[in-house]
């Protein structure tokens, strides 16, 4: 429609810069602010402590630096780090292997019925909900102090993670090859082994690399509860006020974790890149 001037009769006023929130939105914002303040109170937030902490932190840094680089200490910590990585790797491998059959029954529409899927998924959710350090405490009680308890904790933590994500990976995999094999009269198990798992393989590898990263990160603190690895050195360092050694441990952990993350990122692009 045109007016006399020949221009379109559109409303040229631009919208307001700020829209007034609805009453409900306003209540939502107010509620959120209350919850945030309440949480700070619960967390013992104290301005005094924030102000007094930099000097104390500086004091810690001052006492911790330079880190303890004595060859004897470095050798001991190095061996302990190696044990940590062994715990992480062994636990992750066991977890990854056990996760495959578990994921097969957790994946919807694959080989198990809805009820089974739901039960297995809920169980995996429970396993994930329990923190790794709590699993370590449980296994220390079950099998005694030492790296074996740590390895079991890592294994079960990996199952909680990989079991769920492998199942998701298989549900998301291309169903075309599976349908074609089903059409040849193949049994379900054969179809899963020949089509579904190969189709989900790149996603499996990516998930497994994440699990390895997670296992390495977890394994460094399991020692705090006596489940093996370098964590015990951290605890002893702080307990004896041997801050330089504790600092060495922290730096070693940082280097190892960052290295593993770099490696896993590199391996992931290799795998995904290779797939295309």
């Amino acid at each position, binding site marked *: 429609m045109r007016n006399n001037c020949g221009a379109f009769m559109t409303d040229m006023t631009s919208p307001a810069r700020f829209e007034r929130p609805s009453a409900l939105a306003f209540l939502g914002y107010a509620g959120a602010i209350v919850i945030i303040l309440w949480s700070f109170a619960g967390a013992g937030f104290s301005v005094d402590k924030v102000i007094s902490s930099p000097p104390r932190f500086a004091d810690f840094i001052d006492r911790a630096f330079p880190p303890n680089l004595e060859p004897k200490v470095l050798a001991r910590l190095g061996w302990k780090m190696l044990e940590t990585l062994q715990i992480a790797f062994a636990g992750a491998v066991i977890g990854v292997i056990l996760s495959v059959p578990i994921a097969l029954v957790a994946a919807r529409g694959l080989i198990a019925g809805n009820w089974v899927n739901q039960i297995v998924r809920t169980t995996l959710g429970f396993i994930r909900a329990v923190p790794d350090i709590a699993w370590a405490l449980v296994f220390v009680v079950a099998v005694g102090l030492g790296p074996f308890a740590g390895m079991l904790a890592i294994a079960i933590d990996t199952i909680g993670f990989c079991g769920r994500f492998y199942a998701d990976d298989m549900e998301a995999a291309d169903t*075309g*090859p599976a*349908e*074609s*094999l*089903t*059409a*040849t*009269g*193949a*049994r379900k198990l*054969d*179809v899963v*082994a*020949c*089509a579904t798992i*190969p*189709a989900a*393989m790149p996603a499996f590898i990516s998930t497994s690399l994440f699990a390895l990263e997670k296992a390495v990160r977890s394994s460094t603190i399991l020692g705090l509860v006596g489940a093996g690895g370098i964590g015990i050195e951290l605890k002893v360092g702080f307990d004896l006020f041997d801050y330089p050694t504790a600092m060495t441990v922290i730096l070693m952990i940082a280097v190892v974790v960052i290295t593993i993350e770099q490696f896993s990122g590199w391996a992931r692009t290799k795998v995904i890149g290779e*797939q295309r």
Partner: protein
Amino acid sequence: MIKTRATPSPVKTGAVISAPVLPVDIRVAGLCKSFADTPIFQDVSFGLPRGEAVAIVGANGTGKSTLLRCLMGLIPADSGSVDVLETDIVNARPAALRATRSQMGLVSQKHNLVPRLSVLSNVVQGLLGQRPGLRHWSQTFAPAASRDAAMAALDKVGLAHLASRRADRLSGGQSQRVAIARALIGHPKILIADEPTASLDPAAGEDVMELFFSLARREGVTVIFISHNIDHALQYGDRVLGLAGGKLGLDARADSLNAKQLRGLYD
């Protein structure tokens, strides 16, 4: 959802079963299918004698692929009956269903090879219906007879030299030919192809159709294929079925049809 078994009424729509001595490989009666509340097709009935080639035509989304899936029992029909090679697909127990499927071969639009596995493994897996189990998961474990059969099937499609190539490193035409080899290795009585040339360029499409039908004729199998290519439908089909508006709107011998009549189905 009602599962009525329609009485084996004589097939209504133009059942021109030319030679009555030939066994009827596929008999569909009163087949209805809907997804949730969306009806896809109703009351589809036809019968196919051994050795006949049938083209199914129809616009996108009219349910051609769905019809094929119902024929193989890959998805359940709402009502009606499907009998394939004397097996009642709708009510068959899993083992009987698998036994019937193992006498059918499927070639689909996306080829559906298993990526990351070798061409030979993909073809060997075509035997899984007849020889279930670990040994046919991969060419590595396969018995010598199965590997030989796979090589022979690959030779028929002219790709024996690519047996060790990874399936996702093939051209479109090559991978569709591997899919044909996989469908043929078990010497099926019925071959089903869902838009086998849709993802290929015209030249590769012609080659694949030519190859597919020369092999199908040599083996004397019943063929059902979906095609949007009207010339293919008329050239390779003995008979043409047309789906439109949820009904089987056309069932006629290919030599009684012309391209214009078929084009009408797409309006």
